[in-house]
């Protein structure tokens, strides 16, 4: 891609974000207004609009991150944040977006406050958990855990009993625009940027991402946050 293309993608994605965010906020206000008696069957429409806006903003966010990466501007902003709270927020959002998601969360230990780039950590959590949901059967259990070791390292894991990754594809999943053959059979649409960006984000932040997977058995993705950063 040329510098011009990258700039165009970035500009448009930024521009698109504004109407999406203000629409989401307006809907959030309507959905949380207890004095508004919206009938449940109509409330579903509002929720669907909210979910779809989230989908557009996720795509837009990926394009922005990708364009930043392309011009070497994928730079983390480290500020203190509680990683366990970020995880809870992401799980709550995804549970809202996927009515049949069955996410179990296990948080072990205390002291999850670390200097992190909040958007980037949220991107990692959101992408990996999202993948587990869409590559599994509806209501199939997705187990998410966050464990702090005695050494101060934090390990994030997400495991599913989904379709798994074909053995021949396992070396390619962090490649840009890569889509596995078995993923196209599913509703799980994508452009092949999530895992690529997760890896790049982990690289710039100093995290270690790894996975284990077996076709038709399931996948487990891990992200290790070292004790220093």
């Amino acid at each position, binding site marked *: 891609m040329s510098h011009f293309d990258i700039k165009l993608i970035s500009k448009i994605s930024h521009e698109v974000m504004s109407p999406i965010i203000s629409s989401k906020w307006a809907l959030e*206000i309507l959905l949380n207004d207890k004095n508004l008696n919206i009938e449940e069957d109509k409330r579903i429409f509002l929720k669907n609009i909210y979910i779809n806006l989230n989908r557009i903003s996720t795509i837009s966010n990926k394009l*922005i991150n990708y364009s930043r990466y392309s011009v070497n501007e994928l730079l983390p902003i480290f500020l203190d944040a509680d990683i366990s709270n970020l995880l809870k927020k992401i799980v709550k959002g995804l549970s809202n977006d996927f009515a049949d998601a069955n996410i179990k969360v296990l948080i072990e230990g205390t002291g999850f406050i670390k200097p992190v780039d909040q958007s980037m950590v949220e991107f990692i959590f959101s992408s990996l958990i999202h993948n587990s949901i869409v590559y599994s059967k509806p209501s199939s259990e997705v187990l998410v855990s966050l464990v702090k070791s005695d050494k101060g390292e934090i390990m994030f894991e997400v495991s599913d009993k989904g379709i798994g990754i074909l053995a021949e594809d396992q070396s390619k999943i962090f490649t840009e625009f890569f889509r596995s053959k078995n993923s196209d059979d599913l509703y799980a649409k994508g452009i092949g940027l999530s895992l690529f960006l997760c890896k790049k984000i982990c690289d710039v932040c100093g995290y270690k991402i790894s996975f284990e997977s077996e076709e038709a058995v399931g996948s487990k993705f891990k992200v290790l946050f070292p004790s220093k950063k």
Partner: protein
Amino acid sequence: MTDNHVNKKYILIAEDDNFYSSIYNQRLTEMGYEVSVASNGEQLLKLMKIRVPDLVMLDLIMPKMDGFETLQSIKEDANFKNVKVLVLSNLGQKEDVDSAMMLGAIGYIIKSNTSIQDVLMKVKESLS
């Protein structure tokens, strides 16, 4: 003017997108604040001269005078330099966040990953 009116905390919003400013305006007024809206930095500075606000909510990308220039002008003016400025932007780019904080903003909210509820909480915290 009643005493109650005088005691209300005053918030100035600098935001060129009407959809955002109407949401802020409506919610914050409901929360008991007095609110005025400027659609660019120049207008904001004019409004600040009429009444010094307790808090400025500043968007970064605006016509005429953008958020950075505006923030700099506020901090350089002896009458305004103690006014709290909360920066709001669609997205967080390291360079932008660093510049805003260096120029004296009390906080930086990235709108794309914050709910309106959290934005309002942050405003309340900043004013308490």
